[in-house]
C-alpha cells in the first residue's frame, strides 16, 4: 500500500552540512524557542509537572477541608464553599488538560515519535514550537483566572450551564471566561500538535519500517491524536457558544430564552468520553513498551492489539451519554448508551489479557519502570471493572454524582496520568539525560505512591456506595454521612494523601541527584531494548542519528533462539 521514499545518500550528506550549521545555538534558540522535538518535549514535560504540583496542592487543600471541616488549612487558609468549588473544578481541569495530556501525549509523543520511527525531527518543527507556545499561554491564562476578582471558576470541570453561563450564579464572571479561554487555547495547541504527530508518523518513517513495524506506543499516541481531532470539534463549537452566553448575552444554553442546557452536556461529553481514551491509549502504549522490554518477550498479539485499539477508538464515540443518564435524556437513548458502554469494556479487557499473555513465560525483571507498568495494568483493571456498575443506567441512577464515580475515575485516571507518566519517565530518563536513575529510590517512591493511592480511594468507593455526593464542601450537615465511621474514612483518605504527597519528594530528589551525576552512565541502550530510540546516543544530539537508520524487522524481537543476544534491534541487518 505505501511506497517508501528512500532518502538517498546525497540527502543524508546534506543533512550533515545542514546540521553543522546548527552547531552553535544561542541559549534562546536552544532552550526558550526551540524547534527541536526533544527540547519541546522537555518544555511540555516540565510545564505539565509544574501544573501537577498546582493540581496536587489543590487536592491537599480540599481534602484537608473534607477531613477537618471548617478548620483553616495550613499554607492555604479557610476553604469556604466557594473556594472548595473552585479547587475541585480546577483540580480536575488541570489534571486532565494540563498534566495528563501534555505529559503523556505532547511530551512523550514529541520525544519518542521521531526517534522511534527513525527520523531527525517532526515534519513541521516550527508548528511544533508554536503549539507549545499556545499551550504555555493557555496555562498562564488558567493560572491567571485564580487571581482575578471572584476567583477561579467553580462550576465543575464539566462547566454545565446555566451555572457556567451566568455570572450571577457562578459568582466568578471573569474567572469563568478565562477558564473557558484557557481550555480553548489548550485545544488549539493539541490540534496543531496532533496534526504534526500524525503526519510525521504516517510519512517520515525510516526506510523499511512498514505499518506493523511501528512500536505500539507510537501507534497509541497517533490514534489518540486522531481521536482528539475527531471529537473536540463539537466542544470547540460549544465553547464558542458558552463564551458568548457568558459575555455577549446570547442564549444558546439558556432555557428561558429558547436555548437548551442539555445541548451543552452533549457537546461536552461527545468530546469528554473519547477524551478519556485519548489519555488512556498513550499510557497503555508506554506500558506495552516497558512490559515487552522487561519480560524479554514480544507483545503477545501485536495486530490484535492494534485492531482492538481501532475498535475501541470507534466505539468510544458511541458511549458518551452514560455521563448524562439522570440529566433528563430520553430513556430510550439511555438504553442504547448502556449497551454500548458495557460493550466497550470488552476490547479494553482484551488488551489487558494481551499484557498478561505477554508476561506469561517471560523472563521478568522487576525494575522500577516495570513495577510502574505492572501497577498500571492492575490498578486500571480495578477502575475498569467499577465502570461497569456505572455503565448500567439503572445502577447509575443511584451512583451518579456520588464518590463511587469519583473513585472509579481516579482508579482509571491516576494509573493513566500518574502511574503511566512515572513508568514512561523512569524508563526513558536514561535516554533523555544519559544517566541512570537510582533504583532503590525509585522503588521506595513506587511503593510510597501505590500503597497510599489505594488507601485514598478504596474508602471513597465505600463512601460513594453509602450515598456521599460529589462537589459538597462539608458533610457536617448530612446526618447519615456525618457519622464518625464515615468521617474517620475521610480522615484516613486524607492522611494517605499527605503520605503520598510526601513520597513524591523522593522522586524529585532522585531526579535531581541522577540528573546532576557527573558520569553519563546510561550508554545508548541500558535496558537492551529493540526499538530505534535506543540506537541513538543518550541524550540524542540535534538531528538524532548521525546516519538515519533503516528498519529491518518488527519492534519486539526478543528471545530469538538463533541469536546470542536475547534481543534483535530493529536497525540491525539480518
Amino acid at each position, binding site marked *: *500500500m*505505501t*511506497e*517508501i*521514499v528512500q*532518502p538517498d545518500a546525497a*540527502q*543524508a550528506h546534506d*543533512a550533515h552540512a545542514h546540521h553543522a550549521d546548527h552547531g552553535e545555538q544561542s541559549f534562546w534558540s536552544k532552550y526558550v524557542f526551540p*524547534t527541536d522535538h526533544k527540547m519541546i518535549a522537555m518544555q511540555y514535560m516540565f510545564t505539565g509537572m509544574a501544573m501537577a504540583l498546582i493540581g496536587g496542592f489543590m487536592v491537599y487543600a480540599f481534602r484537608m477541608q473534607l477531613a477537618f471541616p471548617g478548620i483553616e488549612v495550613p499554607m492555604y487558609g479557610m476553604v469556604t464553599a466557594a473556594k472548595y468549588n473552585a479547587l475541585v473544578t480546577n483540580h480536575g481541569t488541570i489534571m486532565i488538560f494540563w498534566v495528563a495530556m501534555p505529559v503523556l501525549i505532547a511530551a512523550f509523543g514529541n520525544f519518542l515519535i*521521531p526517534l522511534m520511527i527513525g*527520523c*531527525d*525531527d*517532526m*515534519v*513541521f*518543527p*516550527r508548528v511544533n514550537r508554536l503549539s507549545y507556545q499556545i499551550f504555555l499561554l493557555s496555562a498562564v491564562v488558567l493560572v491567571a483566572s485564580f487571581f482575578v476578582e471572584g476567583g477561579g471558576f467553580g462550576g465543575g470541570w464539566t462547566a454545565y450551564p446555566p451555572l457556567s453561563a451566568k455570572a450571577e450564579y457562578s459568582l466568578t464572571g471573569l474567572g469563568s471566561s478565562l477558564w473557558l479561554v484557557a481550555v480553548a487555547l489548550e485545544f488549539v495547541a493539541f*490540534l496543531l500538535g*496532533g*496534526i*504534526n504527530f*500524525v*503526519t*510525521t508518523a*504516517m*510519512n*517520515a*518513517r525510516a526506510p523499511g*519500517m512498514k505499518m506493523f513495524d511501528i512500536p505500539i506506543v507510537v501507534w497509541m499516541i497517533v490514534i489518540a491524536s486522531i481521536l482528539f*481531532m*475527531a*471529537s*473536540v*470539534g*463539537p*466542544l*470547540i*463549537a*460549544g465553547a*464558542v*457558544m458558552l463564551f*458568548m452566553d457568558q459575555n*455577549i*448575552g*446570547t*442564549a*444558546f444554553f439558556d432555557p428561558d*430564552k*429558547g*436555548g*437548551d442546557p442539555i*445541548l451543552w452536556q452533549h*457537546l461536552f461529553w*461527545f468530546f469528554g468520553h473519547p477524551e478519556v481514551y485519548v489519555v488512556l491509549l498513550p499510557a497503555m502504549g508506554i506500558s506495552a513498551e516497558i512490559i515487552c522490554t522487561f519480560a524479554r518477550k514480544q507483545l503477545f498479539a501485536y495486530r490484535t492489539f492494534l485492531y482492538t485499539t481501532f475498535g475501541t477508538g470507534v466505539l468510544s464515540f458511541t458511549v458518551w451519554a452514560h455521563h448524562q443518564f439522570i440529566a433528563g435524556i430520553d430513556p430510550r437513548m439511555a438504553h442504547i448508551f448502556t449497551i454500548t458502554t458495557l460493550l466497550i469494556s470488552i476490547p479494553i479487557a482484551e488488551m489487558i489479557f494481551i499484557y498478561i499473555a505477554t508476561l506469561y513465560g517471560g523472563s521478568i525483571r522487576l525494575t522500577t519502570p516495570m513495577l510502574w507498568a505492572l501497577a498500571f495494568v492492575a490498578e486500571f483493571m480495578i477502575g475498569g471493572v467499577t465502570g461497569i456498575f456505572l455503565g448500567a443506567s439503572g445502577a447509575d441512577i443511584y451512583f451518579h454524582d456520588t464518590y463511587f464515580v469519583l473513585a472509579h475515575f481516579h482508579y482509571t485516571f491516576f494509573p493513566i496520568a500518574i502511574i503511566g507518566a512515572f513508568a514512561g519517565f523512569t524508563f526513558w530518563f536514561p535516554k533523555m539525560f544519559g544517566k541512570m536513575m537510582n533504583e532503590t529510590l525509585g522503588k521506595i517512591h513506587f511503593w510510597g505512591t501505590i500503597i497510599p493511592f489505594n488507601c485514598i480511594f478504596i474508602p471513597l468507593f465505600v463512601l460513594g456506595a453509602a450515598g456521599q455526593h460529589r462537589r459538597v464542601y462539608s458533610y457536617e450537615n448530612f446526618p447519615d454521612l456525618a457519622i464518625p465511621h464515615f468521617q474517620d474514612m475521610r480522615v484516613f483518605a486524607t492522611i494517605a494523601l499527605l503520605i503520598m504527597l510526601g513520597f513524591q519528594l523522593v522522586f524529585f530528589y532522585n531526579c535531581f541527584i541522577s540528573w546532576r551525576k557527573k558520569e553519563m552512565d546510561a550508554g545508548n541502550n541500558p535496558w537492551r531494548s529493540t526499538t530505534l530510540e535506543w540506537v541513538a546516543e543518550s541524550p540524542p544530539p540535534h*538531528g538524532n542519528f548521525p546516519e*538515519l537508520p533503516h528498519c529491518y524487522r518488527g519492534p519486539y524481537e526478543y528471545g530469538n533462539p538463533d541469536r546470542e543476544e536475547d534481543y534483535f534491534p530493529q536497525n540491525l541487518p539480518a
Partner: protein
Amino acid sequence: MRPIANTRSAAGIPTGRLAIWWVVGSEIVIFGGLLASYVLHRLGNPEWAGYAAHTNVWLGGTNTFVLLTSSLSAVLAHKAAEEGDGKKAAKLLYFTCLGAAAFVCIKGYEWTTEIKAGFTITSNTFWSFYYTAAGLHALHVIAGGIIMLIVAESAKRNEELHRVEVIGIYWHFVDIVWIFLFPLLYIAK
C-alpha cells in the same frame, strides 16, 4: 530549515498535503458540531422560519458566487504552480484573495443592514446561530486569505510552489462549508 523527516512520504503523498487533509478533517467536526446544533434547534423550532425570512438570499447568493469563483481561481493557481509558473500562480492567488476580501465586505454590508434593522446576535437564538456560524466561517475566510498572501509571496519567486495546492485544498473546504451554510441560513425559510 527543513528536516529530512519533512521530505519523506511513506504514506504516498507529500507531507504538506497529508497535513492539510487532517486539518480539513478536524475542521469538519468543528463546523459539523456547530451546524448540527443549529439544525437540531431549527428542526425543533419551526417558528424560526419567520426569523430566517429576514436573511437576504441575494447577498447570500452573491457571496456564494464569489466563493465559487475564488475556488476556480485557486485551482487554476494550483495548475499554474504544477506547470512551474510561479508568477501566474501568484496572480491567481491574489485574485482568490480579492474574492476573500469581497466576501468579507459583502458580509460586512449585509450584517450592517441586519443589525440596523434590529436583528442583533442577541435578538433570539436563531440570530445567535446565524451570526456565530457565518462569523466562524468568515474568520476562516480571513485566515485563508492571509495565508494565501504569504504563499503567493514565495510563489511569485517560484519558491515553495507545492504550498499553492495545500492552501487551495483549505480554500475549497471553506467554500464547501459555505455551500452548506447558504441553504441552511438563506434558503430554508
